[in-house]
């Protein structure tokens, strides 16, 4: 006998058993989903209102910096945003500051093309200006002079002056509305201070759940208008637009994983305090 109480042995549970537990729970809930209604938070409603508010026919700047890790969570809110803007005949200028967005961009456009009630024409409805290296310096240089940084060509090497969408657009100030999909890189403050603030662009972000506490500051001061926050934001957006899909399916599995976590924390504390009361460390 090691002298350990049963509670101490429970606390020393192998981490592999805990890992297997999460794996089983998430798998089961994905394979056997049930519908649970949930209230829409103010963030979700605020983001929906922001996208709805964009006037028809506006040219919107869209920094599509999604990453492979956040794709399952943020793809729904990104594609539905794009679809909603196209349905209002808005034009979207895309660029990205992350390498992984190069592989994701065409996939997202294809999804939106399928969703859209009309055929989207490249150069008229949207244009892809490609990857811009340099993070903050790159973003500043791009927003100062789009043609200077891109060399006057789009991602395919075609002159951007030959496309109607780029008429009168050469900097951040030419976008009255902007959306930045920041993935999980915490670059929202960077876009607020380099795009929203200097140029007066009304800015919203699509970001992972982890960034929300940092973003609430900017929402409180109005420096940021709205945020589609992680998987919940995507699920709410799907619900508000009536396009239930991938995010709605995932949120249930995540809910049960969260319940598992809460149970773990509670049990861990219960075992700890019982062990301590029985003379353990």
């Amino acid at each position, binding site marked *: 006998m090691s002298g350990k109480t049963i509670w101490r042995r429970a606390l020393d549970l192998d981490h592999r058993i805990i890992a297997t537990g999460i794996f089983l729970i998430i798998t089961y809930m994905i394979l056997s989903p049930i519908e649970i209604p*949930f209230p829409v938070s103010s963030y979700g409603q605020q983001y929906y209102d922001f996208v709805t508010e964009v006037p028809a026919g506006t040219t919107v700047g869209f920094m599509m910096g999604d990453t492979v890790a956040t794709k399952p969570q943020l793809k729904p809110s990104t594609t539905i945003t794009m679809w909603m803007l196209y349905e209002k005949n808005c034009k979207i200028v895309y660029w990205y500051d992350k390498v992984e967005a190069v592989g994701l961009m065409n996939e997202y456009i294809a999804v939106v093309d399928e969703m859209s009630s009309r055929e989207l024409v490249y150069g008229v409805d949207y244009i892809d200006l490609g990857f811009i290296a340099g993070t903050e310096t790159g973003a500043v240089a791009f927003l100062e002079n789009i043609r200077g940084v891109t060399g006057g060509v789009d991602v395919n090497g075609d002159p951007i002056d030959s496309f109607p969408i780029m008429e009168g657009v050469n900097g951040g100030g030419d976008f009255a509305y902007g959306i930045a999909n920041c993935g999980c890189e915490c670059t929202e403050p960077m876009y607020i201070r380099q795009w929203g603030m200097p140029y007066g662009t009304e800015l919203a972000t699509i970001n992972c759940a982890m960034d929300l506490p940092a973003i609430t500051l900017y929402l409180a001061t109005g420096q940021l208008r709205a945020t589609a926050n992680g998987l919940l934001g995507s699920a709410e957006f799907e619900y508000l637009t009536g396009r239930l899909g991938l995010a709605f399916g995932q949120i249930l599995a995540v809910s049960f994983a969260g319940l598992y976590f809460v149970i773990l924390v509670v049990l861990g504390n219960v075992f700890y305090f019982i062990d301590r009361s029985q003379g353990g460390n």
Partner: protein
Amino acid sequence: MSDEMYKSTIPFWIITILGALTIVEYFFPFIGNIVGGPLEMLRTYSTILAGAAYGIGTALLVANHGRRIVRRTMAPHWAFSIVFFVSIIVTVGVMLIGGQTGPQAQWVFDYILAPSGQCLYSTTAFFISTAGYRIFRFRNLDATVLLCSGLLILVSVLPLFTGPFPFFVPMAMWLNNVPVVAGYRAFVMGTSFGSIGLGLRIMLQKHPEALG
């Protein structure tokens, strides 16, 4: 001109002058009118430099794995370095042949890079669960505040809790919009002062490690 001058002094003066002009240009339009054009061009050059600079990380990685294979170090792990080389050569090869958005590159991206990246990032879920079970205790007031706010925020974003108990949503909204804003505001201000301080130290050449 001494070694010290062109190896260290001049680069640091470039940082100082460039940084100072970039800041001053923003606050004084008449200076911006004079130096704004060249500075804008330098920022454009910086984006191109950033693209080139990325390759150095890959070059160092390749050199490290190459050394492992040549010297057979860290046996038997050096064999995995061969796997690394095969995958980097295949990836760069398909992108050179078909372009960065060609079908072959897209296949590698969709079925190797993306799933692997998602998978590796998601392994942190397991560690966070283990940490929640083993480490987080309601030991004192500080830990209790930390845990309670964390658990409240967690349950507020999960429909399993907010569906049957919708009061979690306004509670979490209040928490996010009041105490969290208060705490984070100070935190952001503190980190901003820190980053400005570090930037000024580098610009004033008090931080020689900055350029490596």
